[in-house]
């Protein structure tokens, strides 16, 4: 079945440094979603990318969808302590909309 791989598994940064997490799928995705889960919390939707090569920005967060719609990335500029959490990508598979989650990247930010 479809797999969504995400790296790195963990990332420790100093506050102010940049952070990037990468997501790769074994098959072409119809679209991709990104979620953030704070420690002890639940996943919260950040964004959905649909078009090949699409780039979207939310303040310090930049999301990209690859040209082949098989990979995606989330980049955070100048991390803050409020960015701490686990970031998940999730690929939409087929017409039923089954979300296949990556294993997440856990970000810790040292003040």
């Amino acid at each position, binding site marked *: 079945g479809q797999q969504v791989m995400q790296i790195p598994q963990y990332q420790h940064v100093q506050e102010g440094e940049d952070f990037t997490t990468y997501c790769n799928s074994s098959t072409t995705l119809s679209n991709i979603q990104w979620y953030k889960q704070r420690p002890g919390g*639940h996943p919260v939707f950040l964004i959905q990318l649909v078009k090949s090569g699409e780039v979207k920005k939310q303040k310090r967060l930049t999301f990209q969808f690859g040209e082949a719609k098989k990979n995606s990335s989330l980049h955070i500029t100048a991390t803050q302590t409020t960015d701490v959490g686990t970031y998940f990508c999730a690929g939409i598979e087929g*017409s039923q*909309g089954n979300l*296949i989650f990556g*294993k997440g990247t856990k970000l810790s930010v040292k003040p």
Partner: protein
Amino acid sequence: DTAVSQTPKYLVTQMGNDKSIKCEQNLGHDTMYWYKQDSKKFLKIMFSYNNKELIINETVPNRFSPKSPDKAHLNLHINSLELGDSAVYFCASSQDPGAAGDNEQFFGPGTRLTVL
């Protein structure tokens, strides 16, 4: 008002017991889901229900059974609990996954199940 709610928040029980987790959404969504998040934080979909019909049933043990009394509720019943069932279970809901636009999923707060 909470969009997706789950009860209980914590559940501690003995091996072999039967338990249920309740989920309700007030968003008017068509589809509801159950996810299991293990100790390594890996999120795996277990079930989804659309208009009271099961449309996805991943390879979970048949000890797990979703029950949907109406479109706003999807409860999870677990029979003969095992140690390996210990995890956080999240309920979620979304509009029709095939619909256009952002079909984001809204997650409940989670239920931490501990089997002793």
